[in-house]
Structures are given as C-alpha cells and as structure tokens.
C-alpha cells in the first residue's frame, strides 16, 4: 500500500513537471530586432536559465523585410501559441509588424484575431522553416496556468515592456 502511494505520488509529480517543462524555454525578456542586430552573438535568456541563440542570417533576412522603425518595434523571438486539439496556432502580435513579416513569408494575407495572427499547421511548418531561431512555441491553452489574456496582465516576465493588448 505504502509503495503504491509512493508510486502514485511520483507519478503525480512527474505529470506536474511535464507541464512545467514545455514552457521552460520562454524568454525572460524579448529584444528588438535592431538591438539583436548590434550584438555579436545575438541571444535572449530563457526562464529556465538557458539561452536562445539567433542566427545572424535570419536576423539579416528579417531586417531586409522591414524598415528601421519597424526593426525597433519587432520583438524577438516571436511567440507562437499552440492551441490544444486544434490544427491552428496563434502568433502573439502586439504591434502588427509580425503580420507584415509573416504574411510576406507565407505570401498570403493572415487572419487577425483579438489575440494575434491565426495561422494553420501547414503555414506554421512553412514559417518555422524560414524563421527557425526567431520563433518559439508557447503551450498555454491546456494548463491550469493562465491563458495568454491573463499572461499579458502579469508584470514584465514574459513580454518585457511591450505587451499584447487584448
């Protein structure tokens, strides 16, 4: 009986940890494209203490798509919210620059929802092929933890100074 209880407890702990693991890589603070272009080794720090590096080639590509002002407004990495059980995702976009970049890459206009840009799985695949280091997944919908609406109201941690206006 005691052994079984221990097993159950361990299992419970494991399941809770599994939930924490999937979002451990989110950036503590995002940086603008222009700031990253100036860095020798462009990177941001993640909430788990790790580092997310950006490829200079990708940053240079993004810079070719945007003007100087837009480069300052585009915060990286772009966050892609994976909607549970649906074949679609949402790119959390606060300033609209993301829309310009992504619609250029996908070569089609995008559906804008109140939370951001709605993209579908095949589009996500195409997007990730081009922007591999400058985009990141967020798993929000399933957890007992807050949804993106709640997260934007929280101070600094996830989105830094700029926040998604809902």
């Amino acid at each position, binding site marked *: *009986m005691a052994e*079984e209880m221990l097993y*159950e407890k361990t*299992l*419970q702990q494991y*399941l*809770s940890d*599994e*939930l924490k*693991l*999937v979002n*451990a*890589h989110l950036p503590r603070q995002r940086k603008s494209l222009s700031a990253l272009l100036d860095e020798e*080794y462009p*990177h941001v720090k*993640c909430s788990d203490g*790790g*580092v*997310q*590096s*950006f*490829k*200079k*080639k990708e940053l240079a590509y993004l810079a070719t798509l945007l003007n100087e002002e837009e480069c300052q407004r585009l915060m990286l990495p772009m966050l892609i919210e*994976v909607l*549970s*059980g649906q074949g679609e995702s949402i790119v959390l976009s606060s300033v609209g620059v993301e829309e310009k970049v992504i619609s250029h890459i996908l070569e089609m206009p995008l559906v804008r929802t109140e939370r951001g840009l709605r993209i579908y*799985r095949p589009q*996500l*695949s195409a997007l*990730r*092929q081009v922007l*591999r*280091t400058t985009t*990141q*997944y967020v*798993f929000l919908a*399933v*957890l*007992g933890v807050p949804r993106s609406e709640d997260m934007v109201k929280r101070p600094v941690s996830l989105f830094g100074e700029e926040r998604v206006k809902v």
Partner: protein
Amino acid sequence: MPQLIRVRPTKIELIRLKRRRALAKRVQKIVKDRLAILTMEFLQVARENVVKKRSLIEEFVRAYRSQIVAAGYHGYIALEKEFAASEADLRIATGSRNVAGVRMPVFELKEDKPLTEFRGKAGVLVGVSLIDTSSAVDQAAESFRKCLEIIIEMAELQRNLELLGMEIKRAKRVSNALEYVVIPNLQVTIKYLVMKFEERAREEKSRLKRVKVLLQ
C-alpha cells in the same frame, strides 16, 4: 486491461482521484500537442537534411571538377603553393535553441576575414595571386567554401534530428502510458468507488426501512 488502484473507499479519496484524472487528461492533451509539434519539426529537419545532402554532393562534384582543371592547368606544386598563402582560421559560433522543451544546438560559420571575396561573378580566394592563377582556382575555392557552409548546417541538422527523434520516442511513451494505463486505471477506480458509495447508500436505505418496519 485497466487495473484498480488500491485506495481507501472514502469520499476524500474519490475527490483526489478525480483531481488526478483531470490533471492526467490535461497532461495528455499537452503531450499530444507537443508530440504533433515535435513530429512536424522532425519531418521538416529530415526533409531539409535530404536537400542539404543533395546540394553538398553537387557542390563537391563542382568543386573537385574545378580543382582538377586547376591542377591540370597549373600543376599540383604551384597550386599547393597558392593555397598555402590563402589559409585562414575558421570560427563557428555555437548556441542553442529550444523547441517545445528540446534544447538543440545552433551552429553558424563566422567569417571575420572572408575566405573568398566577391569579385565579378564568382568568389575569389583571398591571398591568392590573381595574376598567377586561373578562374578554375577561384571557382574551386568558392565551391569548397559553400561545401563548408553546408557541412556546418548539416552537422546542426543531424544533431537536431537525433535529439528530436529521442524526444518524440519519450513523448510517445508518455502519451501511450497516459492513454492506455494511467487514465483507464483512474477511471476504473473512480467508477468502482462511485458504485461502492451507491451500494452503501442503498444498504443504508434498506437498513433504515427494515428498522422502521421493526419499530412499527
């Protein structure tokens, strides 16, 4: 076949089990989403790996062809002398990125001093005399530089492929364990407890009825 979890048949245990089932279902959903994302990334990396491998072979063919032409034209000794002057240190910037909980390496070739310069249509090997060498040397140099870039990209892709494969295997095992063992066991136990409580309530009711009859 789902098995009963040995718990005390109390209401508090039933509540606990229900909570645990809700958590397990949530985790299952997220694991499935994660698995879908990882599989998508894996296929993408695999596809890109194939494309890069093909282009690497093509580039190597081009490079060796140019080198053979150059060697035939200048001779090996002269060519080696020219190449010795063009030696350069290579620097690779390494970093990491995270895809749905999988930490993967990022490699990028850093050229402080470019190996080749872009002059006209083809790259020209830096440090090589333009007067003493032919365009075949430049072509070979440019092709080998491209090969180097592709090799570094392929190293990254190959490692990503391995890491993603391992994580997919693990996530699949977790997903299957939840789907076929954990959740069914919890459901069976919850059902058993609910039935037990109903049975107890029925027993209680009949006992009260019996007592009522005896009292009358």
